[in-house]
């Protein structure tokens, strides 16, 4: 069959473009054990670095004696803050405008803090030497409770900035206070609360947890002294930013630094920041002239790299007697640990917490967030969410439930009554966002019908009766959630990280024979970018996705971009890809017109070719045009077919979804069993449904973990109690249910292809759905709210406190 005889449908299908469940191109190497992760990198003469870490949460470092360690054969160096100080590398900037010790300078501020860096010939020798470094500490009083940070007897943690009354985000009122961030109208909101017929109040705690990707963080630094070039491979979700930071820190010119993110074994926010291990590996390589590898172990990963959440959210929500919401008030105490190392855009010290009005039309709102230092590991990263959006969604979705209880109203009905209506978009929220598009009522009704919500409530009521009558010891919880995300950071006018605008980029080259390579500023950590970005491009330029290579993560070849986190790849780099594709097409159109001997305006684009209007038999395919661009003189047109786009999004995107979880709870053991989980996601235009579903399954399982048991817990001395996978809960295949996925499709009006991003929605919406199910199970017995994580012990305790065991 000739190209002309194929139908438009056949030609479209052959592209494997938008909307196709295309199989992943990444899988061949991963399924055969041929991935290339940072710990797989080996170089001649490579050394291995390992940290001496603090056993104390707060202590002065009196002395460090590394003589015994240095005596071990194979130990090359032991670096301390004193060694780094002359290079000005003993402290480094965090992404949140704070600074962080690379190696303990005078004192330690959290358990597991990096004190010295041992460099040795292999990892066993390094570990031996770590044990032999003698550090003398003087213990100091420990601060673990953020609510005690400003009491008169509170220890001052950050002596380096104790007197600074101004921080990166405005005035500081106490040495342990980092910032106060206020949004909305305080007095007007308080006036609404004072006059409202109904006000519900609750303290909602989103506990400290951790992204814990299966691969820990690590790096290999190689300083080539001959050429003056530094190469750094590592687990970087934002390699270009790492290069800029490395250049600023080391003084090595940016063009002499090459940062490479090889395959990354999951990130989830854990690999956005810059860690002392990266800096020490660089310094050690500069000092020794040999490549140096640093790979953290799991305990180090859980106790010293970026935690997430730890928000104490005090809320008040006002409504009319019949459930129309009038106002929302929130004060959050944010426990940041020893350094403010959030990865939020500069102007948003509490991320996008001001999306906390959620899916609801709330006329008046006020939010204040106080950032506090404690003796815990730094972080506060966006763990599979866009900058504090999970916290915001959990807060509002719990407050809705609490309000429903106060009103004695069905929580599904209360939501529907207050949703932003379809005709209100673009919608301006009371806390300053412009929601791009949505159709919440349609999604919600679809979800309620899919699970037979009315039937479930009837069954639940019957079960409560049976429980009271002694016929069963099980209760049933129905967890509802309608979340609105805000992703795709973001417009350069208000989003930057360390001053770098949060645009992203794509560069495309079409080869003479009509295949292509696209390079992006983002980096996949399992999201399948090499598969999906090729699909976006295939639909734009009419070349099959199978003929397009996608490359990311090498700063020497990829265009500058801010990386992958906060569900920003599709909204920002995906848009850049489409725009670069359109530039290719614009040039190709001129070439095609020349080849067809007609005016540019007399041809039109059709799937994979330019066709002369009114003469469908006269056409040039993109492949033919590509070949011509390299082989023929086209008057007035440069040879070759390439384009680059740096995309500055005009707005964020606002994916949303309706999730319903049905849970059975054993009152006597506290065990919970997920009977059903229905997840409807609306992420705008769907690029690859198979990958979307996979993202939803994975995100929901992380949500399950967080809601039902996973936490980073400290004792009163600041000891980490959950430092291994023994104590830090990751669900196995046994606890994890099958999920039912569904969708509606409301494109983003401002994104070139209407896509909104999905990777984080299931975590944002999943946590409230699971938690609401647990809380809901006990609603009939007088429970208003109980804190996560809802592990079996806590559920049992809730039942016990409610008198259900007597």
């Amino acid at each position, binding site marked *: 069959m000739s190209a002309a005889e194929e139908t438009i449908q056949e030609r479209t299908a052959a592209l494997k473009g938008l909307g196709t469940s295309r*199989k*992943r191109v*990444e*899988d*061949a*190497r*991963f*399924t*055969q*054990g*041929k*991935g290339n*992760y940072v*710990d*797989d990198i*080996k170089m001649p003469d490579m050394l291995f670095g390992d940290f001496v870490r603090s056993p104390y949460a707060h202590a002065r470092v009196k002395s460090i004696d590394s003589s015994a360690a240095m005596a071990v054969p194979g130990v090359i160096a032991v670096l301390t803050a004193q060694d780094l100080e002359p290079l000005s590398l003993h402290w480094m900037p965090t992404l949140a405008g704070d600074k962080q010790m690379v190696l303990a300078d005078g004192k330690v501020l959290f358990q597991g803090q990096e004190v010295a860096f041992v460099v040795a010939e*292999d*990892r*066993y020798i390094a570990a031996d030497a770590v044990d032999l470094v003698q550090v003398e500490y003087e213990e100091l009083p420990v601060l673990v409770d953020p609510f005690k940070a400003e009491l008169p007897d509170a220890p001052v943690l950050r002596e380096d900035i104790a007197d600074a009354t101004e921080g990166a985000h405005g005035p500081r009122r106490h040495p342990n206070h980092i910032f106060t961030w206020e949004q909305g109208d305080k007095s007007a909101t308080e006036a609404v609360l004072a006059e409202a017929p109904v006000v519900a109040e609750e303290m909602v705690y989103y506990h400290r947890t951790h992204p*814990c*990707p*299966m*691969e*820990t963080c690590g790096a290999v630094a190689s300083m080539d002294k001959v050429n003056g070039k530094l190469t750094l491979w590592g687990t970087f979700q934002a390699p270009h930013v790492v290069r800029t930071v490395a250049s600023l820190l080391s003084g090595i010119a940016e063009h002499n630094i090459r940062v490479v993110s090889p*395959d*990354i*074994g*999951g990130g*989830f926010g854990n690999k956005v920041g810059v860690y002392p291990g990266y800096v020490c590996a660089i310094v050690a390589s500069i000092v020794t002239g040999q490549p140096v590898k640093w*790979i953290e*172990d*799991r305990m180090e990963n859980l106790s010293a790299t970026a935690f997430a959440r730890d928000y104490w959210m005090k809320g008040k929500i006002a409504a009319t007697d019949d459930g129309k919401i009038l106002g929302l008030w929130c004060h959050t105490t944010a426990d940041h640990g020893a350094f403010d190392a959030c990865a939020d855009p500069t102007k948003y010290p509490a991320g996008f917490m001001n999306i906390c009005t959620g899916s609801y039309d709330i006329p008046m709102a006020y939010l204040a967030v106080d950032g506090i230092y404690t003796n815990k590991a730094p972080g506060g990263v966006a763990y599979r969410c866009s900058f504090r959006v999970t916290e915001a969604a959990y807060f509002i979705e719990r407050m809705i439930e609490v309000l429903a209880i106060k009103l004695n109203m069905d929580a599904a009905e209360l939501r529907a009554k207050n949703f932003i209506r379809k005709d209100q978009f673009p919608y301006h929220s009371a806390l300053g966002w412009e929601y791009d598009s949505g159709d919440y009522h349609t999604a919600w009704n679809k979800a309620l019908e899919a699970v037979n919500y009315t039937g479930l409530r009837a069954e639940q009521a019957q079960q409560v009766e049976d429980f009271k009558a002694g016929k069963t010891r099980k209760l049933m919880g129905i967890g509802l959630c309608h979340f609105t995300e805000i992703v795709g950071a973001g417009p350069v006018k208000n989003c930057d990280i360390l001053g770098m605008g949060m645009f992203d980029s794509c560069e495309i080259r079409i080869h003479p024979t009509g295949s292509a390579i696209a390079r992006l500023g983002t980096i996949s*950590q*399992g*999201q*399948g970018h090499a598969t999906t970005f090729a699909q976006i491009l295939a639909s734009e330029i009419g070349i099959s996705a199978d003929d397009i290579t996608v490359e990311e993560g090498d700063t020497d070849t990829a265009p500058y971009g801010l990386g992958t986190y906060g569900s920003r790849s599709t909204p920002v780099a995906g848009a850049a890809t489409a725009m670069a594709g359109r530039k290719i097409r614009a040039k190709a159109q001129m070439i095609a017109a020349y080849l067809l001997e007609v005016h540019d305006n007399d041809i039109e684009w059709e799937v994979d070719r330019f066709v002369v209007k009114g003469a469908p038999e006269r056409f040039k395919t993109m492949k033919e045009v590509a070949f011509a661009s390299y082989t023929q003189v086209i008057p007035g047109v440069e040879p070759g077919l390439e384009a680059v786009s740096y995309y500055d999004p005009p707005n964020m995107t606002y994916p949303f979804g309706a999730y319903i979880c049905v849970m059975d709870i054993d009152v006597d053991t506290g065990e919970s069993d997920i009977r059903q989980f229905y997840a409807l996601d609306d992420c705008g235009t769907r690029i690859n449904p*198979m*990958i979307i*579903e*996979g*993202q939803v*399954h*994975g*995100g*929901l*399982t*992380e949500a399950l973990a967080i809601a039902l048991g996973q936490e980073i817990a400290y004792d009163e001395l600041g000891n980490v109690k959950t430092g*291994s*996978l*023994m104590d830090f809960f*990751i669900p*196995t*295949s*046994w606890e*994890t249910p*099958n*999920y039912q996925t569904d969708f509606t499709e409301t494109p983003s009006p401002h994104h070139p292809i209407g896509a909104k991003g999905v990777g984080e929605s299931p975590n944002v919406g999943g946590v409230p759905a699971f938690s609401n199910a647990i809380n809901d199970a006990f609603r009939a017995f007088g429970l208003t709210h109980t804190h996560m994580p809802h592990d079996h012990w806590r559920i049992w305790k809730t039942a016990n406190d409610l008198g259900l065991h007597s």
Partner: protein
Amino acid sequence: MSKTTIKLNVNGQSVEAQAEPRELLIHVLREQLQITGPHIGCETSHCGACTVDIDGKSIKSCTLFAIQAQGSEITTIEGLGNPDKLHVLQEKFKEHHGLQCGYCTPGMITRAHRLLEENPNPTEEDVRFGIAGNLCRCTGYQNIVKAVMAAADELNQPEAVA
């Protein structure tokens, strides 16, 4: 520390390594024998990323000193299939989107391979129980389970036996 010569048969080839008594098998495989398919996710026997097959059993290779494997037959992900002839599980993981970042995948497939040898007709429950020693942070397991079930089906087709 003094080293001992360890003789192994890895993926059908006789190999030798020099290891200290305390060296973990996963480190010897990865660092000396260049077998980097099995990964390290914890080094405390919790995650299963390091799973290999030793004398017909699934073993977390961070749980074993290399010397304990002296003389044994080891199969890793590298030995299950090759680019010209993939193992059915490797095909099914791709077909059913049973992997994302790929970090757990070698251990997961190696474990699933042994599971299907032990139980060629597993129920979904059997699969979920049988791979519960292998953690995955990305997929939520749903598609992994699907892939393993599909592989079992295909292996049970008469022509696959031949």
